[in-house]
């Protein structure tokens, strides 16, 4: 009995100490065309984060030209230069740095880009990523003309596995620094390795499929060159291989949920739940795609809920390029809303603009539910 209790305690203890990958967002969240969609990871997820922790974004439905951005929510710029626009592989990872922590804790992280879907996002402790340094220099300074590279032998990558990351430890990084990881025949080991942005103290390339392993494997596992690390605007000091040992945590009780996704029905230009803050910081872009057959007799109807206790409830429809008012006047119109549908009628100037370039919805103190294109001529 005593032994059983001891074993049980040991088992519980070992389970408690088991490294886990904590899910912070449950999708799906579609990041569609044109940099229009995004989702902000809440600050609470990063309250206990520390430098070295790894954020992992699992994705699917990736189109060939898809890009992901990991942005500072207030400025919409990459949280560091390296994360402003990246080709999308599954999964995408970001190693949190000291530079990022204040932003993550105060603002969270905006995930955007185009042409992919987020399935989930997780955080893993730094301790669960074990790095082995496989190359210690001497340091190589990358020339402006991309003519310099460090050559790493195949023996460095003997234990390399799919899912591992190749970590470039760098210094003397200049604006516009890029890294290129090529195989023995000078071909990039994967698309993401062909001009990676380099910033801060390092950059990690995760090997998310077999392709880069095959390229590196061309050099064998001996003393032949297997990987050439080149680029421009930085100094390469060390190279490591990092591997995650954490298991997924199945408890989703604290995870953030992506908003429900809706499929547009005929006549709908928008369907969902978009809340516009009172400071006019939110907007929604409607392209001209579904407005091509519109006539001057048609109307666009905005259906919404008022945000309780919002200081004002207003809407303003703008031009896409200049952000001027959608009508003929140059000054933006701020139209008060009372909870009933807002019906936008057409004049020739408005119609021409929205059929040519679409329009932008800005608003304050409402949650937009639907935008409908109603053709009066067909009634």
């Amino acid at each position: 009995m005593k032994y059983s209790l001891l074993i049980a305690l040991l088992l519980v203890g070992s389970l408690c100490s088991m490294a886990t990958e904590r899910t912070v967002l449950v999708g799906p969240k579609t990041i569609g065309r044109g940099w229009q969609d995004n989702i902000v990871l809440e600050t609470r997820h990063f309250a206990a984060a520390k430098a070295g922790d790894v954020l992992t974004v699992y994705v699917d439905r990736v189109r060939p030209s898809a890009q992901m951005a990991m942005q500072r929510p207030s400025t919409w710029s990459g949280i560091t230069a390296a994360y402003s626009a990246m080709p999308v592989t599954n999964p995408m990872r970001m190693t949190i740095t000291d530079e990022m922590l204040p932003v993550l804790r105060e603002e969270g992280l905006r995930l955007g880009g185009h042409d992919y879907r987020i399935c989930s996002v997780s955080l893993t402790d730094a301790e669960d990523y074990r790095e082995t340094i496989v190359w210690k220099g001497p340091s190589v300074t990358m020339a402006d003309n991309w003519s310099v590279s460090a050559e790493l032998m195949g023996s460095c990558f003997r234990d390399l596995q799919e899912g591992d990351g190749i970590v470039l430890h760098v210094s003397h990084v200049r604006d516009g620094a890029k890294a290129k990881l090529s195989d023995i025949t000078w071909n990039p080991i994967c698309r993401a390795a062909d001009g990676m942005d380099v910033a801060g103290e390092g950059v990690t390339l995760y090997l998310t499929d077999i392709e880069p392993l095959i390229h590196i494997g061309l050099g064998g596992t001996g003393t032949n060159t297997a990987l050439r690390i080149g680029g421009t605007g930085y100094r390469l000091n060390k190279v490591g291989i990092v591997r995650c040992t954490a298991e997924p945590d199945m408890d989703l009780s604290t995870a953030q949920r992506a908003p429900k996704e809706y499929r547009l029905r005929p006549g709908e230009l928008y369907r969902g739940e978009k809340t516009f803050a009172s400071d006019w910081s939110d907007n929604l872009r409607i392209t001209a795609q579904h407005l091509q057959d519109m006539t001057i007799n048609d109307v666009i109807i905005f259906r919404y809920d008022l945000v309780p206790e919002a200081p004002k409830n207003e809407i303003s429809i703008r031009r896409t390029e200049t952000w001027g008012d959608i009508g003929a006047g140059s000054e933006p119109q701020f139209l008060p809303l009372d909870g009933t549908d807002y019906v936008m009628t057409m004049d020739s100037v408005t119609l021409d603009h929205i059929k040519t370039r679409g329009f932008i919805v800005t608003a304050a103190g409402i949650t937009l539910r639907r935008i409908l294109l109603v053709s009066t001529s067909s009634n």
Partner: protein
Amino acid sequence: MKMNLLSVMLVAMLAVGCSPEQPTEPVNPPTEDTTKVEYALVNPNATAETRRVFSILVDNYGRKTLSGTMARVDWNTDEAEYVYRWTGQYPALNCFDFINIAASRDVNPNGWLDYSDISPVENWWKAGGLVSCMWHWQVRANNGTNLTCTPGTEPTETSFNADCLDDTQSADYKQLVKDIDQVAGYLKQLQQAGIPVIWRPLHEGAGNSTQYQGGGAWFWWGAKGSLAYVRLWRFMYDRLVKHHGLNNLIWVWNSQLGDEAWYPGDDVVDIVGRDNYYALSYPLAKEYKQLAASWPNKIITLAECGNGDEVEMSPYTKIWQQGSRWSWFMPWYDHSYQKGSDDHMYAGKQWWLDAQQSGVVLFREDLPSANR
């Protein structure tokens, strides 16, 4: 009461309409009749094959649209093959790009392609396709290593001076002539093979300088403004036509809208083109009509098209219905296209099937034999 009033109005309208004193007007105004305009090549010495190709464009202008594809980057017909796989037909036209002449093996032993091997073009022509060529004219970047078209002062941009024609001793002038002469060599090979070229150099010269406050040229050949651009165009025309005796070129100039000051002149332009990457039916129709009004004696074409990030290109059926009458269309290539896929960044299988079924789009086999 409403009915009574309506009846009275109807009778009154009919009475007015039937009055013999009223001038008679056609019920429908005549549609644009492009056959009334006499389109002519600017080069009086154009080869017979070139005149035949031009006549194909003229004969179909306003009635049908020729389909086109862009080479995947430079010197191939890869995109035309995708269209064939999707539709069972090849597009009528394929465009090649002299973007990588610095890497052509006839001038660079380490090069990865060979423009002096004209077989990709010749095979296409012999199979009945029309040939177009353009030139993303790359020059040395400020860092002395890269090649680029992008003007600017950054290391990877270029300060190459498009306004160097008066300084014949300058390095830029010498490079400019050297590059034109290199391309002339390839075009001459095509001429010797009897292949006319729908030639679209110095494209998008004005960039967006005429569209937005603070806009500018995005290629070095437009960076010095309209005057320098027009001079450069005319210099190239003289160099290719008069100096090199190239009579197989049909000259296409790209308009960026509102850029009449950038037009090189009626005597050196055969066709006016437009590149549009927000290719929806309504804006395209607007642009077509604007260009046709500005250059009524020139054929108007959709030299490049596609969708930006935000929208999908309209089906060609819609584009035609909305009133566009482009001479040809040419979706841009998809660099990240995955072999065997029906999906394409700009114009995938569904788009091409719609074009094929529209009844107004011509494919290679629909063309009269221009090359035989």
